[in-house]
C-alpha cells in the first residue's frame, strides 16, 4: 500500500473511536516527553529521526508487522523520510501525520453539547492536541463565540454552514497558553469583542467590558449569557451562565483539576480569590449546572463522543481541587506546579496587542500542552 498522508481530523476520529493505533514519534526525546498524541488505545515508540537517517533496521523488531503505523514529527518532513524507510523495509500500512504536531495542535473538533430552550444549541470546539475548549452558542440565526482559538476559520465556516451570524465574541479571561482568536473574529465578522476589564487594563485595542449585570442575548428567543465575576486564575476571570443550565468556567474549574493562579506572576495574591470563587461563589450556584471548562488536561476527561462536561454537584464530590482544607489548598495552588505553558509571557503580550508576531511565530509559541491546571 505504501505511505499515505493522514490529516489531524482523521487521526482525531481514530483516537475518539477507540481504535488501537501504533505511533512512531520521531521527534527528539524532550519534545516527546513534553507533549504527544494521547488516547486510550494508543501505543507509542519514540525514536528521534536523526537516529533513523540511514534506515529503520535497528527498530524493526519493535514495530507491529500487521497493523497500521502512524509516523509523527514536528512538521511532517522527518516523518516522510522515516515513512519511506518503513515502506522500503516491507511495512505495508504506513501513515504520516499531515503537517505534523503543528497541525495536531491546531485542529478543532466541533461537537454538539445540547439543544437549548427555544431552539438554540451550544457547541464545544475541542482543540484535541492542546486541550483548549471554545464554545459557540447559537439561536435564531445569531451566535456568540466564547474563548475562540486563533484558527478562526473553524468558527466562521461553522457559522456560515448553518446560516448564522456571529454577533458577539468573548474571552472569559486573558489567556496565557494560547493566542485568542477574539480580535481576529471581530475583524473578520464585525462581531463585538468582550473582555473582562480587570484583565484588559493594558490591552492596546478597543473592547467592550464583560461584567456582571450586562447579560448578552443571542437570537430573538433570548438565550442569555450571564457573566459572573469569578477571579483566581486571573484577576478578571469571568464565568458565564448560559440558558440557566450551563456554567462556562473558563480556566477556574476543570473536570479533573482547578485553575492555577500563577501565570501572571501573582500566585500569592490570587490564591485567595481562587479559593473564594471555588469554595463560596460557585457553591452558591445550582449544583445541577453543567460545567463547561476552557481546557482539559487528560483524554480521560472526554466522554465517548469527545465532549468535556460535568455536573457541578458531581465535581464538588469528585474533583480533588474542590475538596481541600484551606492550608492544603494554598499549598496545592502555589507549590510544585507544572511548568508554565510554552512562551506564556509572549502569548499574554500578544493577547494584549502589545506584540504582533507573524503566523509562523504564533504557531511556534503555542507548541505544547495548555498547562493551565494545577495538576500537570
Amino acid at each position, binding site marked *: 500500500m505504501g505511505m499515505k498522508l493522514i490529516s489531524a481530523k482523521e487521526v482525531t476520529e481514530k483516537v475518539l473511536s477507540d481504535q488501537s493505533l501504533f505511533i512512531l514519534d520521531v521527534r527528539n526525546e524532550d519534545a516527546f516527553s513534553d507533549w504527544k498524541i494521547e488516547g486510550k488505545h494508543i501505543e507509542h515508540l519514540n525514536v528521534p529521526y*536523526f537516529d533513523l537517517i540511514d534506515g529503520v533496521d535497528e527498530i524493526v523488531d519493535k514495530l507491529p508487522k500487521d497493523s497500521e503505523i502512524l509516523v509523527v514529527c514536528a512538521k511532517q518532513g522527518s516523518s516522510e523520510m522515516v515513512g519511506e524507510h518503513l515502506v522500503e523495509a516491507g511495512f505495508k500500512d504506513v501513515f504520516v501525520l499531515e503537517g505534523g504536531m503543528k497541525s495536531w495542535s491546531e485542529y478543532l473538533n466541533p461537537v454538539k453539547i445540547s439543544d437549548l430552550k427555544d431552539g438554540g444549541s451550544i457547541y464545544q470546539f475541542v482543540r484535541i492536541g492542546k486541550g483548549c475548549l471554545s464554545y459557540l452558542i447559537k439561536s435564531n440565526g445569531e451566535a456568540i463565540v466564547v474563548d475562540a482559538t486563533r484558527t478562526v476559520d473553524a468558527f466562521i465556516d461553522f457559522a456560515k454552514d448553518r446560516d448564522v451570524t456571529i454577533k458577539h465574541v468573548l474571552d472569559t479571561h486573558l489567556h496565557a497558553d494560547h493566542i485568542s482568536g477574539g480580535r481576529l473574529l471581530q475583524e473578520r465578522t464585525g462581531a463585538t469583542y468582550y473582555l473582562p476589564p480587570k484583565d484588559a487594563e493594558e490591552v492596546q485595542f478597543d473592547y467592550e467590558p464583560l461584567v456582571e449585570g450586562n447579560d448578552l442575548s443571542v437570537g430573538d428567543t433570548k438565550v442569555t449569557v450571564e457573566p459572573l465575576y469569578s477571579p483566581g486564575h486571573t484577576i478578571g476571570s469571568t464565568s458565564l451562565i448560559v440558558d440557566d443550565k450551563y456554567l462556562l468556567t473558563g480556566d477556574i474549574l476543570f473536570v479533573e483539576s482547578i485553575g492555577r493562579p500563577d501565570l501572571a506572576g501573582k500566585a500569592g495574591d490570587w490564591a485567595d480569590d481562587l479559593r473564594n470563587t471555588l469554595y463560596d461563589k460557585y457553591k452558591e450556584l445550582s449544583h445541577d449546572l453543567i460545567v463547561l471548562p476552557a481546557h482539559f488536561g487528560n483524554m480521560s476527561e472526554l466522554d465517548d463522543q469527545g465532549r468535556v462536561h460535568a455536573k457541578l454537584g458531581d465535581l464538588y464530590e469528585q474533583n480533588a481541587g474542590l475538596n481541600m482544607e484551606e492550608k492544603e489548598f494554598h499549598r496545592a495552588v502555589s507549590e510544585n506546579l507544572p511548568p508554565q505553558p510554552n512562551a506564556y509571557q509572549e502569548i499574554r503580550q500578544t493577547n494584549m496587542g502589545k506584540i504582533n508576531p507573524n503566523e509562523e511565530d504564533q504557531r511556534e509559541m503555542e507548541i505544547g500542552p495548555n498547562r493551565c491546571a494545577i495538576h500537570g
Partner: protein
Amino acid sequence: MNADKLLDAKGLACPMPIVKTKKAINELNTGEVLEIHATDKGAKSDLTAWAKSGGHELLQDTEEDGVLKFWVKKG
C-alpha cells in the same frame, strides 16, 4: 569561533539540516569543529539532542537576524 568546516543549511526544512550535518561531521576528524548555519527553528532543539546522542559537543550557538549558528566539535 574558528571552525574547520562550514555547512550552510539555510532555507532547508527538517530533516535536511540534520541529515547534512550528520554527513558533514562524518567527513571530519575527532576534535575538529563544524559550523552550521540554519533557518529552521526546530534545528536548535534537534541539533542539541542529536549532538548529545552522537557523543558530539555543541560548543556554542547564536541567533542573528533569523539565522541560527552552531559550532559542533566532533566526538
